[in-house]
């Protein structure tokens, strides 16, 4: 690196984004006087092809060997300009960016402050650029397999796409069957397709696809490695049923001693099941599972004279000795499709969900109107002799959404439409029922949504604009206390069934997945994408992608679209068979390293280990960086007491001049 630095500086206007606040001419003039600077130019859009062409030509004609682009955040265009350098035959790591947009023009109101700051930022970038060194981008082989975590419609779709493209997929689902929430739905808005009819074939495909290994009733325990080379440990929980022998006949469940006594989670707990169960008739795989929390034999060690299920099973499939099994697989990419939970309305006690059986959630409603549900699709309120069809049904929207008082400020995006759908279904089943929807805004933004909302209103569903505040009881009627805000009339409306349009929340156990895969969360607590617009299915962990409601509330069309996007992105390393590894990794100076191991403890990626070397006849410990794992975050360097470990491109020798140029005294 003996050649003298010849720096080219390119100041971008970003249309008026930068130029309106930063005096570009002044910055150019200033930069031209900085040591080592050979060329300075400014251009309206540096990232455009003509902008990049300027850089390429100057490298060729002016023999430039360092490039500073003063424009937007490196998160936006560092990769773009590295490619520009590479195209012109220069090592891409000879690039330094000065962020004069996000860090400057966008945050300062006038050029009085912005221009001097832009100058400092450019000067700092030039100081660092002079010290840059060329780095080599390495590639390692990638596994040509993928894992999908979560077997809802998102996970199913991603798995099918990847498998259809010819790669092996491991689909890991926590519950005994794939299907997720969509399997719980009756019909789906806005088209009213029967959910099971469009879902079941895909569930069967997943089970039969030669490229998919379906692991139900399983959970990911540990993930190591990096993009292209993840090592994943999966725990297959004991079902206490040998799936090769079980033929799904159901004799066991019919004879279980606690038959119909255990709330069925699949039916949102409105239906009951046995301790050995198939969550729903179309479950895939169609194999029974023993619920270890409710089975008498497993909890009490005794079930009558012996487990009834075992007695009646014709194939001898039930095996109480079965143990959890741990398997380890290697995959090149991982898709997280763990979905959502619904808001628990007991957190809004004013609606009386905890007190009144006739106040139910939207998900419970889905099960009550579903032909496959616990009532066979008949909607009844009251028990036994009192059972009757509801005549006045009230829907309350936005329960647990758009509501700072419960910490959920976001809109759940599906409740307006599922309410319209359920209102329609009730009207269909009970034509003389009075159905009222209490809303604050109806959000019908998707394809066919507004048309569906129009149709439902004309069917005689009453929409009242006001979000109810309270539910109480007068005699045996529920009273919905609400204001009709369009006429400014406070009302106390009677209802005999109230349906709460509960919003979508991150899964209760999302923390576990975050820790396993080093994911981040947005302020709504859903998993965070790498960029809300440009990398919507990527995450901050390379090789890990998001699909479906795990990333944020969405309907089925959006879920499927995102699942296909995640599958396509996950297939990039699979189809290339190779992945680039970070070039800006940490480097150890073995001559000064004391082998104390501080760095190994602080590295968040477990990329450092101690090794023993022979140092002039002495056995000494020194740190060693696994370049495939290192992300160049620099944590090690901050911890090292002897300055022996430094990230490339961020060495002290490179960043100290940069800091000094900002005017910081050391």
């Amino acid at each position, binding site marked *: 690196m003996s050649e003298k630095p010849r720096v080219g500086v390119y100041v971008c206007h970003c249309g008026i984004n930068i130029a309106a606040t930063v005096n570009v001419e002044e910055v150019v003039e200033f930069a031209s006087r900085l040591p080592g600077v050979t060329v300075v130019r400014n251009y309206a859009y540096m990232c455009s092809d003509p902008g990049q062409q300027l850089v390429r030509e100057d490298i060729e004609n002016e023999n430039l060997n360092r490039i500073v682009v003063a424009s937007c955040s490196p998160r936006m265009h560092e990769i773009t300009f590295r490619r520009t350098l590479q195209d012109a035959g220069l090592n891409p790591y000879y690039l330094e960016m000065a962020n004069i947009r996000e860090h400057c023009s966008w945050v300062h109101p006038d050029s009085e402050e912005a221009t001097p700051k832009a100058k400092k930022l450019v000067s700092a970038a030039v100081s660092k650029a002079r010290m840059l060194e060329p780095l080599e981008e390495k590639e390692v082989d990638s596994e040509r397999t993928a894992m999908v975590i979560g077997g809802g419609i998102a996970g199913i779709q991603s798995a099918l796409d990847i498998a259809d493209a010819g790669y092996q997929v491991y689909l890991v689902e926590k519950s005994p069957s794939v299907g997720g929430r969509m399997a719980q739905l009756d019909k789906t808005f806005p088209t009213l397709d029967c959910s099971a009819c469009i879902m079941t074939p895909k569930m069967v495909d997943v089970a039969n696809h030669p490229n998919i290994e379906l692991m139900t009733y399983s959970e990911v325990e540990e993930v190591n490695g990096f993009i292209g080379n993840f090592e994943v440990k999966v725990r297959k929980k004991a079902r206490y049923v040998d799936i090769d022998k079980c033929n799904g006949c159901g004799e066991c469940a019919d004879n279980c001693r606690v038959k119909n006594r255990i709330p069925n989670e699949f039916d949102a707990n409105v239906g009951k099941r046995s301790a050995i169960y198939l969550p729903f008739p179309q479950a895939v795989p169609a194999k029974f599972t023993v619920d270890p929390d409710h089975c008498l034999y497993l909890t009490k060690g005794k079930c009558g004279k012996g487990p009834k299920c075992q007695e009646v099973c014709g194939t001898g499939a039930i095996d109480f000795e079965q143990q959890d099994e741990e398997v380890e697989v290697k995959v090149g990419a991982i898709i997280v499709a763990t979905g959502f939970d619904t808001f628990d309305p007991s957190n809004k006690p004013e609606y009386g969900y905890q007190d009144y059986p006739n106040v139910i959630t939207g998900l419970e409603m889905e099960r009550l109107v579903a032909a496959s549900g616990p009532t066979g699709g008949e909607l009844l309120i009251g028990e036994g002799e009192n059972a009757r069809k509801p005549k006045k049904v009230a829907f309350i929207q936005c329960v647990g959404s758009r509501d700072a008082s419960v910490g959920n400020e976001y809109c759940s995006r599906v409740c307006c439409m599922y309410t319209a759908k359920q209102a329609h279904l009730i009207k269909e089943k009970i034509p003389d029922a009075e159905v009222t929807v209490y809303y604050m805004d109806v959000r019908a933004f998707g394809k066919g949504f507004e048309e569906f909302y129009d149709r439902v209103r004309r069917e005689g569903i009453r929409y009242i604009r006001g979000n109810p*505040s309270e539910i109480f009881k007068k005699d045996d009627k529920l009273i919905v206390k609400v204001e009709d*805000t369009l006429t400014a009339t406070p009302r*106390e409306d009677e209802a005999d069934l109230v349906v709460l349009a509960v919003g979508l929340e991150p899964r209760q156990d999302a923390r576990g997945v975050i820790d396993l895969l080093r994911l981040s969360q947005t302020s709504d607590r859903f998993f965070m994408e790498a960029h809300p617009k440009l990398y919507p299915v990527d995450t901050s962990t390379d090789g890990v992608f998001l699909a479906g409601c795990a990333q944020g509330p969405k309907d089925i069309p959006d879920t499927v679209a995102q699942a296909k996007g995640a599958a396509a992105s996950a297939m990039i390393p699979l189809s290339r068979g190779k992945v680039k590894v970070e070039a800006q990794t940490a480097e150890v100076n073995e001559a000064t390293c004391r082998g104390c191991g501080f760095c190994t403890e602080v590295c968040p990626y477990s990329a450092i280990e101690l090794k023993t070397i022979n140092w002039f006849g002495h056995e000494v410990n020194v740190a060693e960086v696994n370049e495939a794992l290192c992300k160049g975050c620099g944590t090690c360097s901050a911890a090292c007491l002897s300055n022996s470990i430094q990230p490339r491109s961020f060495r002290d020798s490179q960043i100290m001049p940069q800091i000094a140029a900002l005017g910081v005294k050391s």
Partner: protein
Amino acid sequence: MKMSVENQSIIEKLDLLGCIQCGRCTGGCPVTVRTNLNVRRFVYDAYQASLEDLMEELAQYSEIWDCTGCHTCAVRCPKGLKPVEVLYSLRNQIVESGKVEPTVRDALESVFLEGNPWGKPKATRFDWMEGLEVKTAEEGQEVEYLFYVCCSVAYDPKLQVVAQNMVKILEKAGVDYAFLGEEESCCGSEVQALGEEELFMEVQEENVELFSSYPAKKIVTLSPHCLSALKKYEGLEAEVIHYTQLLAELIDEGKLSWEGEFPKKVVYHDPCYLGKQNEVYDEPRQVLKSVPGIELTEFDRSRERSLCCEGGGGKMWVETESQQERLAETRARNAKELEAQVIVCACPFCILTLDDAVKAVGYEEEMEVMEITEILGKVL
């Protein structure tokens, strides 16, 4: 049009632009069944009124005085607004212009001069202690629990028993307590509700200073209204709790138990200032359940869904004109449906309004209204 700084700050302070006009505030407001108050409309109109400097005109709507300060609107608002405070700031317009009802004027004046809103002399505040050995606080000497007696409890003959029984209970439990002595004065809860923000600030300042000379681990209030006010005080360091919280703890730790029995069917009424505003729901019930022989039932509208008795928000001094039944009367009827012999409560204002209501609907022969400490006094 240029907005004045003051109006700009009203918009910001009350977060008027945060409102999405969902109607939960008015939907939840208990008094809409008997008055014209629509608090959402005031949130909506206050924005325009601030822009055009018309707050004083908006304040002419007499229904701003119907608000009971229950804070249901604030608890239910999904956007974190406190609609009730819009009404308080409108009341402030009237108070500042001096055109208030004589009852209100007298109450405020009495707080200013005598340290209580009831027009009673300062000097008789501690008459309730007569005939009792009461530990009073000494300057600079820290106590575990410093008791703050509400003005209504201190002066109202029906309520003095609350403080008197409290002393007996504390003696029995043997805790380190003290009452405040002569210097105690009004907490300002109702002053603020009546819109006299300036006087409230003064009261706050004086009380914070007072508490700094009588250090305590915890300040214990007898009234939920004092609890709410003290909790708002800026610069008050000690933790403030309601007496039911302390008693529940003592009972739980086995430091307090009862000799007698109270074999009656009682129904507990959640005061808005204790429940909705401070989320104290379980402790009063815990205390009641510890009484031998008692049968505790619940209103349908209880806890977070409790029906306001209309005693707060300065309503002790402003009558609501309405043909409709008072909410406290509805409460009494509900209690009758439950066949309760006693409506029990933990707030002096609730006691006064419910007691009136029971008489108004003619149940006084069969139904009593009692403060929790009154029951405890019978089983000590």
